[in-house]
């Protein structure tokens, strides 16, 4: 009894570490997601029956792949009686040689690129990645995204149907397409992260798991494809995640960076994030994720808000504005300039940006302006800008924050 319990634990552990890799390889060999999933379960069923008797094989992964493949061929043969076209597929599979062990590694990368193919809608990319790469259950993903499970299941079914019918390949993209395709993968990962991070109320526990999954995905992609921007993305996620405990109050209100209790920041995540940022920045091709991570690292290095190196943050935002000249980046840069050179300098920049018109309906731009006016003692201007921000704000915690600021002025 004890022995069988031990075996069960061992198989469970192997399932956790190997099942996604075996699955990814089976998709390549079988050319079909559903067939591969069935084969994966069959392979583990055989393992449960055989391993207690014969012992765990020295290399469980190729063993599972091989058994899964034979099971799939068996299944196809059995179904052949009903569908003649399957016979041909079974024959093809049978003729394939067994692949050397080291070929198996790349399959997870193939799987990621297929799930994040730009020919799929982004919401399907996200669902498919969490389901097939991370191995989450449909119900788990649905609850994390506050969707009904059938809605999410349908999204996945449609995506798989398109992969099949449109001929979306199971491969790592060609070198010339790689930067674009990697961008899509990073967008999906960061979207999953933010979905878990931005949720500050409600069933927040399940959503925090999403951030964890995104970090895991970031690690996986970095391990398989060591790219400086992937490094930057992982660093950015770790540095943001390090503040999770400090960024909401017990009542669920958002706490600004400058007001957070820095004792609550996770030092282990900060250390890992900083070391990754350094590596990313030392490569010639630093990108937006790397720079944003560097900004987060500068914040993380300051023991208290007053000790923040604002000159460095301004420099990093200037660099970011060159690569991504969006109004929001310019806004953040103006706020950093205000911290470095005083509110007057920041207000001057901010008014120039607001005059461009792109941020006229962005509540945070008006809230930032109000704050600078307040510091300068221009109460009437501050009130007007807080009021403008209040007219535009949509989230309840932010509204409460702005209202309290406005009250303080009166």
């Amino acid at each position, binding site marked *: 009894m004890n022995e069988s319990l031990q075996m069960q634990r061992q198989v469970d552990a192997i399932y956790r570490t190997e099942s996604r890799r075996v699955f990814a390889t089976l998709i390549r060999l079988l050319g079909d997601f559903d067939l591969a999933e069935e084969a994966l379960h069959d392979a583990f069923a055989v393992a449960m029956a055989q391993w207690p008797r014969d012992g765990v094989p020295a290399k469980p992964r190729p063993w599972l792949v091989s058994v899964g493949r034979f099971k799939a061929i068996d299944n196809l043969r059995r179904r052949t009686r009903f569908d003649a076209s399957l016979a041909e597929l079974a024959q093809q599979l049978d003729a394939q040689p067994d692949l050397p062990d080291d070929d198996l590694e790349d399959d997870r990368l193939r799987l990621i690129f297929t799930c994040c193919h730009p020919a799929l809608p982004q919401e399907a990319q996200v669902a498919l990645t969490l389901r097939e790469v991370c191995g989450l259950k449909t119900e788990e993903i649905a609850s994390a995204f506050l969707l009904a499970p059938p809605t999410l299941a349908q999204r996945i079914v449609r995506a798989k149907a398109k992969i099949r019918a*449109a001929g979306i*390949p199971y491969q790592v993209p060609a070198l010339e397409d790689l930067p674009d395709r990697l961008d899509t993968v990073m967008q999906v990962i960061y979207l999953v992260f933010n979905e878990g991070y931005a949720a500050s109320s409600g069933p927040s526990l399940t959503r925090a798991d999403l951030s964890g999954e995104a970090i895991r995905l970031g690690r996986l992609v970095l391990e398989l494809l060591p790219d400086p921007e992937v490094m930057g993305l992982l660093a950015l996620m770790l540095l943001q995640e390090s503040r999770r405990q400090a960024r909401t109050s017990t009542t669920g209100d958002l706490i600004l960076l400058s007001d957070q209790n820095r004792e609550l920041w996770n030092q282990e995540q900060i250390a890992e994030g900083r070391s990754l940022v350094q590596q990313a920045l030392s490569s010639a091709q630093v990108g937006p994720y790397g720079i944003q991570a560097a900004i987060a690292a500068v914040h993380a290095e300051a023991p208290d808000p007053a000790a923040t190196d604002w000159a460095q943050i301004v420099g990093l935002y200037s660099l970011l504005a060159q690569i991504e000249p969006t109004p929001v980046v310019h806004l953040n840069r103006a706020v950093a300039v205000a911290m470095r050179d005083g509110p007057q300098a920041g207000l001057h920049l901010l008014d120039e940006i607001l005059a461009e018109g792109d941020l006229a309906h962005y509540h945070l731009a008006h809230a930032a302006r109000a704050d600078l006016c307040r510091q300068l003692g221009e109460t009437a201007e501050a009130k007007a800008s807080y009021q403008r921000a209040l007219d535009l704000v949509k989230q309840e915690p932010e509204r409460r924050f702005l209202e309290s600021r406005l009250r303080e002025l009166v």
Partner: protein
Amino acid sequence: MKYMLLIYSDENVWAEGEQERCYQDSVKLTQDLQAKGQYLGASPLQSVATATSVRMRDGKRLVTDGPFAETREQLGGYFLIEAEDLDDAIAIAGRIPAAHKGTVEIRPLVELTGLPPGQ
């Protein structure tokens, strides 16, 4: 796999001579595809002003002037190709000269058996 690449663009944005150049460049692309065994067919279409629509309803044939749908961008031509997979088809679509002005929609073909070979 076989793919139909449908080229949509606003007919009014083509300047004098521009369309002619686009046709010539497209012919070059078809020759290149032919050399690689990926060419099945291609053609520009006459302006949407020449379109006629036919539908059979209750055994009666209804013929109307104009395209199936009035849109700002119209179907202006097509390439029919043999491609390895969607990524291959996307790469070829990106080489279609008209992709610089309009949009190329990629549609995989349903491969029916029993069709006679084309001319």
